């Protein structure tokens, strides 16, 4: 076996750089076929819990002697039996295994089949812990005695020290990946770890410097298996560490670990794990500067998330106050109550252009005599589309998942699996694309059809269906005019709000079988893929061309405009499932204007933007990196809601970033 792969070594991202898209996944499947035949036979016959136990007994244990912590994934033995909708894109409760030992978690009198399975999962982990201890004993590893003690404690008592807590987080995280829970988040680590830090420093057990070194290693360890952890594209791992937060009275909550994480990500220059910084009006200047300096280096982190908008939205939706205040996010941006929620936040994507396309293809266009009638008609088609979306959600069945259930609050108490409503929150989330394009289309129709009467709807239909054949100059004109979407014109804002409100109207009655509600947001990763088989649209977009990226700016002087626009939208009711502004910024711009940039961000937060991420790149660098990838192995960009190495991206993603960068620098119309 050994000559083919050695976990931890040949996982290095660099070695797998070229494994993009399909080849990555295919290779992973091949590994499984070669190694796991026997294993699959065993667990195909029993329950998932039996499979888990089998996995714990058989998977390779790998101790990297250079690290002070233990972490390994044996993807040949990954447990991935799919029985329905797979759980992923979640953050487990690491806290459960920090404040309990494995043996404490076990039911003493397992009465139901779930409890029996639950105990099997704990047994499996105990077995794995035992095997890890054996392996450490026979190794030459750093901190041998400490490691043995940490794992022995894991079986019998809660974590006591900071370093022990780190090891347990790694252990839980490793179990999640090992059991194929894709896009596993890391949660609010600065908050979770601080009590251990504080106690250890007080008693002299550790100090600031040691802790920082341990966190550095922690991040480096989590960066391993980069390609295995990547989902749709390289870098799409969902490994987000949430930092900062808000107290009940609105004060900003942060600590020394918040700063250390920001410093370390800046130093390490790795695209993964990623950071999300929660902010509010009271976030101190110092934290803003650290965060902006970090992102100014081009590392892609942190993304900013506005507590002042998100917490009230969560509460109004029915999330308990304290849970709302401790929110984290799923892989990209969608707010998620870590460890308490199995809400799948990205179950499907609503494509706002689809109803527009249907309208043009099916509607009797001549009957739409006013712009208002046209808009109402679009909304009717939107409603039909959303009915289809709701049907998809209703039909979804979830995978029985006792492993996840161990790490989700509530399952143990209720003696219920996460998939049977064991978790406290079980909502459904969808993302959306192309609202920006639809707003553009609507306002163009208002202007050219109903006001200036340059075209009829029938002519527009022809443009769309023929991909602007013979009407290239119209296409160019539409494409090059200043966009409406993202400007702070009252008309644009009102129309956007109207479509969002309509989306709520069609979705708010939905309940899944556990009473969970449906939420949506304006950001989705699919702005390229969802557009592939879509007809041209009356905003100059040609057949198959990508949609607008999130809520994004086109030029460097539109930052304030887009902040005004985004903060004028209403994210209440169920409209909070990730609404990210995507800035293109040149590296100099932040560096040379730090104080002004801090002001800009603070005002944006105060005015009420939802979330914000930045691509800090210059078009020149991107173009050179595309032509000559070897010279830019470490160039990091932000795609969807994650950061990744530029050279790992498929060409259409590279081109999209280049064209946005050119526009931002005023180099392309």
């Amino acid at each position, binding site marked *: 076996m050994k000559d083919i792969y050695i976990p931890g070594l040949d996982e290095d991202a660099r070695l797998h750089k070229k494994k993009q898209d399909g080849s990555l996944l295919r290779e992973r499947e091949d590994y499984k076929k070669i190694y796991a035949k026997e294993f699959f036979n065993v667990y195909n016959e029993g329950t998932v819990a039996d499979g888990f136990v089998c996995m714990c007994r058989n998977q390779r244990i790998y101790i990297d002697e250079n690290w002070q912590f233990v972490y390994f994934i044996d993807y040949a033995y990954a447990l991935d039996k799919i029985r329905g909708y797979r759980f992923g894109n979640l953050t487990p409760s690491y806290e459960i295994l920090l404040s309990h030992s494995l043996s404490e978690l076990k039911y003493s009198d397992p009465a139901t089949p779930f409890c029996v399975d639950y105990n099997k999962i704990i047994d499996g982990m105990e077995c794995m812990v035992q095997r890890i201890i054996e392996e450490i004993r026979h190794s030459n590893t750093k901190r041998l005695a400490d490691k043995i003690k940490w794992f022995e404690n894991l079986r019998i008592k809660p974590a006591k020290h900071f370093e022990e807590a780190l090891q347990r987080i790694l252990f839980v995280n490793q179990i999640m990946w090992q059991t194929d829970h894709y896009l596993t988040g890391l949660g609010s680590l600065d908050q979770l770890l601080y009590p251990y830090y504080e106690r250890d420093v007080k008693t002299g057990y550790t100090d600031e410097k040691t802790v920082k070194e341990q966190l550095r290693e922690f991040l480096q360890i989590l960066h391993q298996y980069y390609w295995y952890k990547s989902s749709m594209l390289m870098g799409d791992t969902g490994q987000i560490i949430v930092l900062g937060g808000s107290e009940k009275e609105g004060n900003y909550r942060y600590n020394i670990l918040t700063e250390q994480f920001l410093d370390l990500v800046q130093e390490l220059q790795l695209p993964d794990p990623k950071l999300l910084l929660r902010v509010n009006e009271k976030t101190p200047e110092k934290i803003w500067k650290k965060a902006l300096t970090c992102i100014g280096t081009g590392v892609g982190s942190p993304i900013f998330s506005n507590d002042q908008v998100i917490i009230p939205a969560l509460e109004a939706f029915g999330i308990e106050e304290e849970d709302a205040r401790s929110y984290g996010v799923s892989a990209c941006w969608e707010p998620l109550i870590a460890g308490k929620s199995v809400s799948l936040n990205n179950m499907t994507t609503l494509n706002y252009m689809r109803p527009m396309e249907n309208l043009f293809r099916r509607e009797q266009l001549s009957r739409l005599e006013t712009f208002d009638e046209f808009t109402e008609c679009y909304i009717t088609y939107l409603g039909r589309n959303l009915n289809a979306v709701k049907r998809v959600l209703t039909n979804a069945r979830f995978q029985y998942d006792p492993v996840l259930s161990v790490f989700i609050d509530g399952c143990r108490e209720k003696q219920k699996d996460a998939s049977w409503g064991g978790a406290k929150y079980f909502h459904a989330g969808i993302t959306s694309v192309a609202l920006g394009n639809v707003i553009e289309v609507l306002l163009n129709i208002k202007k050219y059809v109903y006001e200036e009467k340059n075209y009829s709807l029938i002519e527009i239909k022809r443009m769309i269906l023929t991909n602007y054949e013979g009407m290239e100059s119209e296409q160019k*004109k539409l494409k090059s005019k200043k966009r409406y979407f993202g400007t702070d014109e009252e008309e644009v804002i009102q129309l956007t709000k109207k479509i969002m409100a309509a989306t709520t109207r069609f979705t708010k009655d939905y309940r899944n079988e556990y009473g969970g509600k449906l939420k949506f947001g304006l950001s989705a990763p699919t702005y390229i893929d969802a557009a592939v088989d879509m007809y041209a649209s009356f905003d100059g977009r040609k057949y198959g061309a990508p949609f607008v990226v999130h809520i994004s700016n086109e030029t460097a*002087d*539109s930052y*304030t*405009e887009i902040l*005004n626009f985004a903060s004028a939208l209403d994210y209440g009711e169920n409209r909070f499932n990730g609404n990210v502004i995507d800035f293109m910024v040149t590296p100099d711009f932040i560096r*040379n204007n730090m104080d002004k940039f801090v*002001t800009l961000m603070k*005002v944006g937060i105060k005015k009420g933007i939802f979330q914000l991420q930045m691509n800090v790149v210059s078009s020149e660098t991107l173009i050179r990196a595309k032509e000559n990838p070897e010279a830019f192995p470490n160039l990091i960009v932000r795609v969807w809601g994650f950061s990744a190495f530029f050279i790992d991206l498929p060409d259409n993603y590279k081109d999209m970033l280049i064209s946005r960068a050119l526009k931002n620098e005023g180099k392309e*119309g």
Partner: protein
Amino acid sequence: MEHLVTNIQRMCMQDGPGIRTTVFMKGCGIHCPWCSNPENLLFEKEEYARADGKGVYGRSYSIDELYQEIIKDKAYWNPDGGVTFSGGEALLHMDFLRALFQRFKDQGVHLAVETSLFVPERLVQDALKYVDFFYVDVKILDAEKCRTLLGGDSMLYRRNVDTLSHSGKKICFRIPCAEQYTLQEDNKELVLKFVKQYREIPIEIFKLHRMGESKYQSLRKQMIEDDDCSDMAFKDFFEHLKQQGNHVSVIRL
């Protein structure tokens, strides 16, 4: 005279303290050979033709329309940002802008102006009532050359600088550097001598850029070619200013 606006640029980081909105007024009293805003020289509307279509430089606004457009970014002007009027020559539009200035002043908005100061003295006096910060160009100082090259009256300019310098308002000099023009040996000496009298006024120097070239093309005009400045000449000028006790910094526009 029409009072047209060619551009309202939001979130300017270079046109004064804080985050600012800069308004470009159309029309200028002089004609610097290296001007990078050729669309702002004449006071009337001008047609242009670009690859993506034809259009018109210059749009007329009522004071209220202009106010509504600018005020959108008010939230970003704290603590020290505001509005900058540029051009062309912003001060030549004083009679039009006065009401707008008053409105901003009443609201405590910080106002700045970029000016060449080749304007009648009464306009400067008037502007002093409203404007908090002046960017003043220093260009060609020899009377004869100033008239032929720029079409400006250098005595008027000097008087205006003097007036400003005694006003107690914040001022910053801006010197565009081109070896054939401003840094040409004789003129350079004159500039050095001139700014030496105003050592309390900080100076920003910059190299000319050719960003305006496409605008020249769109107006079917030719941009001059001899507007460059070697690093050496630029650095040398910088050092000279520093040596004689001026506060100088380099900016990139």
